[in-house]
């Protein structure tokens, strides 16, 4: 909202200033390019090292594949990989939605009923300390071999970080803002919808970004037990078949999905939280 136009207009009249300005912006562009190019250089280097190691050490294909073999598998078996991505994606996204929705509801309850928070928060902490790998068989026994137990695992894994962050976001309202709402005679509902909810959004999105990748982990771990479709099942099958190229390709597909999910949440965050100074990704 600042008006730099006036400053820019003044400086153009002085050639020395204009040159300095041009130099400044050129340096800025160079830095921006560098920031974009360096990660690509890192990836290329890593693949080159991988290629060299497999070639030089003559690593057997059933131990680790070469980059070309993985690329071949990615292309040849693309249809099969996508078929397996679909159930995993459905489970991760559904679990993400269910888990976060429940966490937001429970956080709202906790903020308005302190007694509930005091009674149930320790239980939530205990459930969260159980590793996913241990929770998975319990849920499979309870819910069978369909999509449901995987969704439940993904939901559970999202639930805790979001709950903790959401409670903090709803409660950490500036005390003077609460005094302001009191002077304005605002009721609890108005304070919730006009203040607490907005205040919690930055906290919520940092939890959602974590949840977007953990939900995928939850779905994959769920698929390790008693399923024959999905990224998780494919990982297990490829391992038992010593098909290392397929294993690597599957892992790449899974993490590409994770990254996409994360980027979508980051994009939504930028669209929703439009009142903060420009944040770097």
């Amino acid at each position, binding site marked *: 909202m600042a008006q730099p136009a006036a400053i820019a207009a003044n400086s153009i009249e002085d050639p020395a200033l204009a040159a300095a300005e041009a130099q400044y912006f050129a340096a800025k562009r160079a830095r921006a390019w560098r920031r974009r190019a360096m990660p690509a250089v890192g990836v290329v280097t890593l693949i080159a090292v991988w290629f060299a190691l497999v070639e030089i050490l003559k690593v057997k294909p059933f131990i680790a594949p070469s980059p070309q073999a993985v690329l071949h598998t990615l292309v040849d078996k693309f249809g099969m990989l996508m078929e397996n991505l679909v159930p995993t994606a459905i489970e991760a996204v559904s679990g993400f939605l269910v888990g976060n929705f429940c966490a937001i509801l429970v956080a709202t309850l906790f903020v308005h009923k302190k007694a509930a928070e005091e009674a149930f928060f320790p239980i939530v902490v205990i459930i969260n300390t159980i590793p996913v790998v241990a929770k998975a068989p319990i849920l499979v026994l309870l819910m069978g071999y369909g999509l449901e137990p995987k969704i439940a695992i993904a939901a559970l894994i999202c639930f805790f970080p979001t709950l903790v962050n959401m409670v903090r976001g709803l409660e950490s309202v500036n005390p*003077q803002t609460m*005094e302001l*709402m009191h*002077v*304005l005679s*605002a009721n609890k509902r108005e304070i919730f919808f*006009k203040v607490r909810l907005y205040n919690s959004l930055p906290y919520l999105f940092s939890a959602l970004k974590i949840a977007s990748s953990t939900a995928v982990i939850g779905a994959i771990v769920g698929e390790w037990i008693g399923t024959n479709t999905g990224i998780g099942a494919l990982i297990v099958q490829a391992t038992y078949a010593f098909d290392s190229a397929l294993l690597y390709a599957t892992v790449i597909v899974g993490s590409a999905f994770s990254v996409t999910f994360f980027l979508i949440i980051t994009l939504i965050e930028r669209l929703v939280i439009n*009142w*903060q100074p420009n944040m770097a990704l």
Partner: protein
Amino acid sequence: MTALQDVSLTLAQGSFVTLVGPSGCGKSTLLRVIADLVKPTAGRVGVLGRTAEQARRERAIGFVFQDAALLPWRTALENVELPHEVGGRRERPAHARSAQELLELVGLAGWEKAYPHELSGGMRQRVSIARALAGDPKILLMDEPFGALDEITRDRLNEELLRIWEKTKTTILFVTHSIYEAAFLSQQVLMLASKPGRVRELVPVDFPLPRRLALRDTAEFVKLAARLRGILETC
């Protein structure tokens, strides 16, 4: 410890009164009691012939905090509109200024869509004054509103506040720890003594309006400031 005891204030309608006293004399507490932000441990509080709670519910009181306390997710205009959206969704009285007019009144025309992080400290406090006036209050309470600002901004806002007050004719009760600010702004300076907080003296200030900053360099002003300081030392 007794913060305040037997304090009674009578403000003439449309007057500008500042509260000055040593720290711990309860000047902020007095403001908070009037605004129903603090309940007295004993006794009763009457504001405009009602209880403090009734006065608050009727929006008889506007409050300006030291920190502007703007909602960062609302633009300047939306912040000024907040009082009309909460506390029973009261309609704006026909004679009251719109949020747009209030922003123009505090000198922020053209900044309606700016978010608080895009505004300077002084501008944020202007928005907060506009918001406090949005309920069309009978009394505007200001709790060291310019205390956190730099001196130049503070001086400018002192002049601006007098201009706003002359235009709105709102009764203002203003807490400050600066005797210069008190002498410049008010028609009456209410000196509080501490332990327990009580009214020490009411000093009238007779400088004509409109006042400009140059007033502070006149002999009369310096004399008044010296007198206020003298009283403050015995508080």
